[in-house]
């Protein structure tokens, strides 16, 4: 009596179509280093999609004000949307309060904005860098749902696994053969390091390449952006 129904079960289930997947990985790597009196925030410009490169020149960073910069890897449509939201909130804050948006406020805002979408996250991996209230360079690294911490150096995105250990080793002097003293990198040394790690990551990660936008934040000059070319292969 029940036989017909029993047979029907797997058939009914198998005609289900897969739902639309709302996420896309466009790759990209972001690195931020906080120094004594400077901060560097950098982001690659390649937009990858599977094995294709639809374009080599997108902007993954936003200058929130003259001492805070946000850079994001991950899904580009989410990146653009998130940056729009954050920039609008920063603008409203600065208009209403008539004072600059501090780095730590930006970090909290970003964390809240990401966690607000806890169950439908922005597929974005953010770093936030700038000068804190004392003029010291600091950076924050976040995951897609808003966990983050204040650190001296961070890398996010497809090149994270390639770059982060090198940064730990070179900036924080971790895992050194002979335990060396932490020496603060000068801006020039940090810049060279950033260029090196991106060049290296570009050799192994297909989503990292083309160019890297490097934002240099200092008290004297505010935010200064330079573009460093990487290989296009």
């Amino acid at each position: 009596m029940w036989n017909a129904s029993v047979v029907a079960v797997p058939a009914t289930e198998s005609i289900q179509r897969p739902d639309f997947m709302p996420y896309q990985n466009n790759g990209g790597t972001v690195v931020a280093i906080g120094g004594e009196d400077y901060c560097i925030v950098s982001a690659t410009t390649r937009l990858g999609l599977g094995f294709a490169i639809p374009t080599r020149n997108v902007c993954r960073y936003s200058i929130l004000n003259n001492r805070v910069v946000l850079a994001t890897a991950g899904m580009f449509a989410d990146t653009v949307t998130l940056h729009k939201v954050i920039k609008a909130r920063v603008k409203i804050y600065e208009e209403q309060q008539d004072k600059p948006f501090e780095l730590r406020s930006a970090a909290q805002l970003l964390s809240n904005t990401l966690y607000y979408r806890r169950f439908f996250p922005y597929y974005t991996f953010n770093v936030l860098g700038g000068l804190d209230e004392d003029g010291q360079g600091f950076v924050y690294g976040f995951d897609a749902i808003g966990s983050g911490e204040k650190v001296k150096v961070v890398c996010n995105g497809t090149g994270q696994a390639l770059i982060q250990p090198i940064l730990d080793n070179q900036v924080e002097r971790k895992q050194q053969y002979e335990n060396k003293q932490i020496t603060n990198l000068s801006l020039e040394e940090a810049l060279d390091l950033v260029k090196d790690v991106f060049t290296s990551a570009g050799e192994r990660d297909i989503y990292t390449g083309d160019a890297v936008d490097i934002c240099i934040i200092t008290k004297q000059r505010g935010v200064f952006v330079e573009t460093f070319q990487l290989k296009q292969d």
Partner: protein
Amino acid sequence: MELHISSSATKAENFSSAQLFVDPTRHTTAPLVTGGSVVGIKCSDGVVIAADTLASYGSLARFQNFSRLMKVTDSCMLGGGGEVSDFQEIQRLLENLITKDFCFNDEHIQTPRSVHQYLGRVLYAQRSRLNPLWNSLLVGGYAASQSFLGVVDLYGTTFESEVLATGFGVLLGLPLLRKAYRPDLSINEGIKIVEDVFRVLFYRDARSINRIQVATATSAGVTISEPYSLETKWDFEGFVNPRSTYDESTW
């Protein structure tokens, strides 16, 4: 044993109705009638975009004279691939947007950049509702002596470039476009390049046709050509005798 069977039966009976009540609206989970690649290139004095005139139903070449290009304003044009019904919905949205500006009569018109941004937000909003407009769109235009060329996809990804392509055009056309691009291209050279790209697409993309339309945006405004056929050539050695190319390439 008996218990097991009866519970399965209950599940089977409830399954279809439960499905109806959980999700009474059906979303686009796969495109049905689709357009193929759109390609575009910036020139020194304007922009060229082009699309073939095929709307496929799966592997069937269903509608062979379907225009996938649209004039949005006198300075802005749109080319669409992907789900055809969604593209027509987008055309409707744009017509309404443009008509509102028209009625305000305050000289404000949508620039190519603002049309691009608008479509980006619309498609992103729809994908965020898990009900995407299943399209890849190219927005081209020439306003304030500046060329514009941008793309939007079904996820709401937006970016601009000197050369752009969608669909198979990303794989087969973009390398050709990047190679051919110069900042000082004339419009006619641009047209020549996109024709070459569509010829290549016709040879290798099974969802394409050698009948295309080309739209240009210059200081004189937007013009969309009538559909025309591309000359094709099939007596290449590699086409006639595929084995002859085995030595040099694997495919």
